C-alpha cells in the first residue's frame, strides 16, 4: 500500500479496510487481519492499526470479539457507505465543486464522463 502525504496514516488505513469491505474481499462476519498482521503488512506501528480499528469499531464497521479478533459487522457495507459519504460530502466535494466552478464544467459534460467512467471501471 502506497501512503499519500496529506492524510493521517490511520485514516488512510481505515480507507484501505473500507475498500476491502466494499469490494467484498472481506465479507460480513469474516475476520479481518489481526492488528499485528496488518502492522507487518503495511509496515506501520501496531498502535496506529489499533487506532484505525477503534475508529472502525465506533463506526460499527468492525466489531471486536474478545480473544478471537476483529470481524466485519453484518451491516458493514452500509456503514462504510454512510461513513465515506459523510466524509466525501464534507471534505472532498467542496474541492471538486470549486474546480467545476473555476473551470466552467457543465453538468452534462460531467454526467457523460461519469457514465463512461462507471462503464469502463465497474461494468466490465
Amino acid at each position: 500500500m502506497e501512503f499519500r502525504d496529506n492524510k493521517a496514516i490511520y485514516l488512510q488505513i481505515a480507507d484501505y479496510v473500507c475498500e476491502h469491505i466494499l469490494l467484498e474481499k472481506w465479507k460480513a462476519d469474516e475476520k479481518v487481519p489481526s492488528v499485528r498482521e496488518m502492522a507487518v503488512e503495511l509496515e506501520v506501528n501496531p498502535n496506529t492499526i489499533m487506532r484505525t480499528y477503534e475508529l472502525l469499531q465506533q463506526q460499527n464497521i468492525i466489531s471486536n470479539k474478545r480473544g478471537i479478533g476483529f470481524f466485519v459487522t453484518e451491516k458493514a457495507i452500509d456503514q462504510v457507505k454512510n461513513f465515506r459519504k459523510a466524509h466525501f460530502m464534507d471534505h472532498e466535494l467542496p474541492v471538486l465543486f470549486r474546480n467545476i466552478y473555476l473551470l466552467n464544467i457543465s453538468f452534462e459534460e460531467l454526467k457523460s464522463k461519469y457514465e463512461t467512467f462507471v462503464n469502463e471501471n465497474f461494468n466490465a
Partner: protein
Amino acid sequence: MIKVNNLNFGYSKHQPLFKNMSFQLSAGHIYGLLGKNGAGKSSLLKNLAGLVYAKSGTLDVFGFDPSSRQPAMLEQICFIPEEFYLPAIKIDAYLKANAPFYKNFNHDYFTDLMKEFDIPVSQKLTNMSYGQKKKVIIAFGLATQAKLIIMDEPTNGLDIPSKTQFRKIMASALTDDRCIVISTHQVRDLDNLIDTVIILDENNIALQASIEEITEKLTFKKVKEMDPSIIYAEPSLSGFHAVMPNYHQEDSKLDMELLFNAILTEKTKFKPYFN
C-alpha cells in the same frame, strides 16, 4: 518502564551534554529519538543501557539502576549500536558465545530472521558486508527477547529491500511489554513505525509527544501562500510546507522532518502547545 529524573551528564566538566533532563518511557511504544549531530542521541541511549555514567540524577530502568550493570537488567536490554565489532568467527560460534547471556534467547526466531534478511549462515562474520553484519546484530538483538530494545541508526547500511524487511520485523516485534527506542536521522525510513517522537536539543528534551498528540495540536499541510497562523514553513515547488495550530480538528499526516526543523527553529513558539 523507564524513569529518568534530573539527569546531568557530560563527557567533560565544562561541557555538559544533558542538564536536568527528566522523562519517562513506557512499554508498548516505539520511540523515535531525533536530534542534530552531537545533540547526544547516542549518549542518552548509552545512559539507559549503563554504558556511561550520569554525573547526577537518577535513572530507573525497570527497577534497576543501569550504572550497576546487574545481569538481571542487562539480559533484558538489547543494544544495537551504530558502530560495532564482530569477531572473525561464524554465526553459530557467535551464538554459542553470546546467546547464553540472555535467558529468553529464541534460536528459532533468530533463524527465521536470518532467513528473512537473506543472510548465509555459514559465512564468517568478518567476510560480510557492513549491511549484512548489521542485519546479524539486529536479528541477534531481537532474538534476545529483551524488554528494552535500543537501536542507534538501525537503517544505516541497509539496502532498499532490507529496509522494508526491517520495518516489517519491527512492526511485529512491538509487544505490550516491550519498549523500543530508535535513534535516527533517516526519519523517512521509519516514520510510520514511530508512535512517539523525542527531540533532543540544547542539553535537554525539546519535545516528547505521541504522533496522535502532535497531530491533534498541529496540522501539517501544503499551502500556496504564507499567512500569520503559520508557525513554521519551508518553501516547496508549489508553495510551502507549513506547520500551524490545528484549529479545525484536521487529521493531517505528520511530516517528521518538517516537525524536527520546526521545533529546532521555533522552540519557544511551540512550547505552549506541549506541556
